[in-house]
């Protein structure tokens, strides 16, 4: 296997865990994962790939690393899964560590490459399979594993305790009342139309986003609720570490919270991977073909509010602004037009990006990569030089990222490449520009 291109990263989640592995454990785990766990899809992909390398041009890691073939999608699979299969699972701990580095930290499972493959081979699926093998062996970057542990204990991503969650909602409700009369975050309101769910970092670091949604929901006159109990977090890092049992447990809680509250739909905050977990990967593991309660992403929700006149725009945001399109809701769900609709409805000077829609580049933070933490930050931002160039070319001063991972990832890119831009969630723009009816003014 090729050496890592950049400096060696120290990560006890890889360095220490491989010390406990034995050749037998590795071989047994791999063979079990590839026979019992992997679908027939693996075999088909193996037989179909002609190693043409057309997928390479799709990958921001490859493009950002001067077209180093080791960073191409097929290169990543070749260094990991194909080698594993070729050697019938007889690989060592160092090899597994490199697999984790490649699969967990150098691929965002963004699926851009599958659009470039003439056979539509889903390389992200294969790299997720590599992650699954690593996870079954206990080899997962430390920060990502810690997040997974948090999910397993608390059903949220950030070790948020049950009292901290409720308390945060209560003080955010009070803050929102300073802006809009009688703004509320109705807790456990049985039979509400909407259960609103968010990701762990909101109560932990970005509590004002909860206040913002209270303002938006109150002005729009929505019948909504949030659970005071576990199931409020829609995010899912175990989906990305390869711990699918924990992934499923978290998703089940999320939907059972909606059942318990008798909510007709779930509206989720601005997060892309959470959408993927709740709409695709989670339900699938649990045997639901579709989410058992419809899940609406914030972008669609805001689109509907503005389109239906439930929220009116008082004055438009003036600074030139562009967008980051979260892969999981744009390439994955086709919300690109709705995103542009809400941007144009609220912003004076919207600068579109190129490439765009499903062809847009990933933020390089998604797929659990940013959750691998500070040790991998440098390789992550260096892996997305193309994104920096793309954003710079718009001349915008503000980037709107309707996804938490994109938000943090783009912020890192903005700082590293000195783009001098501000990063915002769409809801921050919306509360700024929307009209508050007279009777709700404080």
């Amino acid at each position: 296997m090729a050496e890592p291109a950049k400096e060696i990263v120290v990560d006890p989640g890889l360095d220490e865990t491989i010390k406990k592995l034995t050749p037998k454990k590795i071989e047994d785990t791999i063979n079990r994962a590839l026979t019992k766990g992997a679908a027939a899809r693996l075999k088909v992909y193996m037989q179909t790939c002609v190693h043409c390398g057309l997928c390479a041009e799709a990958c921001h890691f490859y493009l950002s690393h001067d077209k180093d073939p080791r960073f191409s999608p097929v290169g990543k699979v070749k260094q990991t899964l194909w080698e594993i299969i070729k050697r019938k699972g007889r690989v060592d701990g160092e090899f597994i560590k490199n697999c984790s580095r490649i699969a967990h930290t150098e691929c965002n499972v963004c699926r851009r490459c599958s659009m470039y493959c003439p056979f539509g081979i889903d390389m992200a699926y294969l790299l997720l399979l590599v992650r699954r093998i690593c996870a079954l062996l206990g080899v997962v970057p430390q920060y990502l594993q810690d997040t997974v542990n948090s999910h397993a204990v608390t059903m949220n991503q950030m070790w948020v305790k049950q009292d901290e969650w409720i308390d945060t909602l209560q003080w955010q409700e009070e803050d929102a009342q300073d802006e809009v009369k009688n703004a509320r975050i109705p807790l456990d309101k049985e039979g509400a139309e909407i259960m609103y769910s968010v990701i762990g970092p909101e109560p932990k670091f970005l509590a004002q986003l909860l206040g913002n949604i209270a303002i938006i929901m109150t002005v729009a006159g929505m019948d909504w609720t949030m659970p005071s109990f576990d199931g409020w977090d829609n995010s899912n890092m175990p989906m990305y570490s390869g711990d699918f049992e924990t992934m499923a447990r978290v998703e089940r809680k999320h939907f059972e919270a909606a059942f318990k509250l008798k909510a007709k739909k779930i509206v989720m905050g601005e997060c892309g991977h959470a959408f993927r977990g709740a709409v695709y990967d989670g339900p699938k593991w649990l045997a639901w073909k579709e989410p058992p309660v419809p899940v609406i992403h914030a972008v669609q929700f805001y689109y509907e509010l503005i389109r239906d006149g439930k929220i009116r725009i008082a004055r438009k945001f003036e600074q030139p602004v562009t967008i980051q399109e979260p892969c999981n809701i744009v390439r994955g769900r086709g919300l690109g037009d709705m995103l542009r609709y809400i941007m144009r409805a609220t912003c004076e000077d919207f600068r579109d990006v190129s490439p765009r829609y499903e062809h847009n580049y990933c933020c390089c933070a998604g797929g659990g990569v940013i959750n691998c933490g500070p040790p991998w930050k440098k390789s992550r931002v260096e892996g997305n030089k193309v994104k920096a160039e793309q954003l710079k070319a718009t001349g915008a001063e503000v980037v709107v990222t309707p996804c938490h991972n994109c938000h943090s990832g783009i912020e890192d890119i903005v700082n590293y490449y000195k783009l001098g831009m501000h990063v915002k969630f769409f809801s921050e723009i919306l509360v700024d520009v929307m009209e508050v009816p007279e009777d709700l003014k404080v």
Partner: protein
Amino acid sequence: MQSMTELESWDWETKERLVADINGWRSKFPVIHECVASNDGEKISAPVRTEDGRFTACVNGESWENTFEKLWSLRFGPDDRLTCLVREDDQWTVAVDDETWGEGFEYAWNIQFTPDGKSIAVNVKGENGYGIALNNRTWENGFAEARDFAISPNGEFTAAGVQTKRLGEGDIFGFAEGIWTVAVNGKPWGKNFLNVWGIAFSSDSSKVAAEVRVGEYEYAIAVNGTPWNKIFKCVWEPIFYPQGDDVLAPVQVDEGWTLAKNGELIWDRKFVQAWHQKFSPDGQRIAAVVAPEFGKWTIAVDGSSWNRTFRDAVLPPVFSPDSKRVAAIVKENNRWTVAVEGSPWVEGFDMIWDPVFSPSGDRVAAKAEKEGKFYIVLDGKIGKQEFEALWSPIFSPDGKKLLVRSIEDGKYYRRVIPVEEI
């Protein structure tokens, strides 16, 4: 759940009573939150904000004497005592019928009752750390964290998942050693696990079972701290057999999901999913929500599933009091309804609440919602009257009448309606 004696003591004669005109409350209180109705239908209450910005509970138009900085999670317990969480001087506690528990906490949440409603418990965070307070008495031991809990049927014990050691930030190795267990009345089990979830008490209150994660990908059920000697790929919440100490839980094996009793598989059939197992009142039958195939949901009783499956979801099964019939909420094409013994009602709804069997088990009623209005549905037929708000109907002990608690034009009514007039 109300006992037969309790049900018999309710007024089943008065046909209609206007209990409260909630419209009138608006002149007294600038803010009124969600209403709750007592089980017997005699009372309607809501958290309200007073003119001076404080919170209290308004019951049938009269407010409690005590007012608070905050008041929420208001509900009538099984014995119809009005219970909620309140904050005063930055201390949280429980208020029951206008009386607060003596002790205050940094935080209190998650009110739970015993089936008879006599015992009330909450999660608390206090000076000692995290624990549970049961009937105004807090665990002596505090923990780094305690999440959720179960209350024993006799009202004497509470059991919660507790963290026994503090964990440094990002300490994945400390976590892997196991720092979670179950504590019963503050006393932790002797053994720690990676995780504990889904705690249940035996019917005689002497035993506690929980899902435990013994290794990263190794799951089992532990009873009083001892895990089953069988490990599974995954498990869901255990329950005790109604008599004795045997435990039943959904488990995942290579071929799929099924139910296991004390670790031994009891159903031959495997499913793509199985959960929410329930015993019939006589303890002889077991029903569970299952997916015989991917994307197809139904109920299995004693291992064999209904023929009819549903695409979106099936919610936990409900047995008739005579144990003979099973009903469940089902959902298909985003329409909710009830299926009884595998046959769904023809009409679909925007939302439906748990089916309620008549005492003899021959009739099924449910509260349902369509286009913003609420209805009583009886054996699949939508009732004549539409309501602005409604609570689930309750059958009279002789099964001939239904107690209907509803709001129309802002007025709360208690009605007793013969089933044939629904």
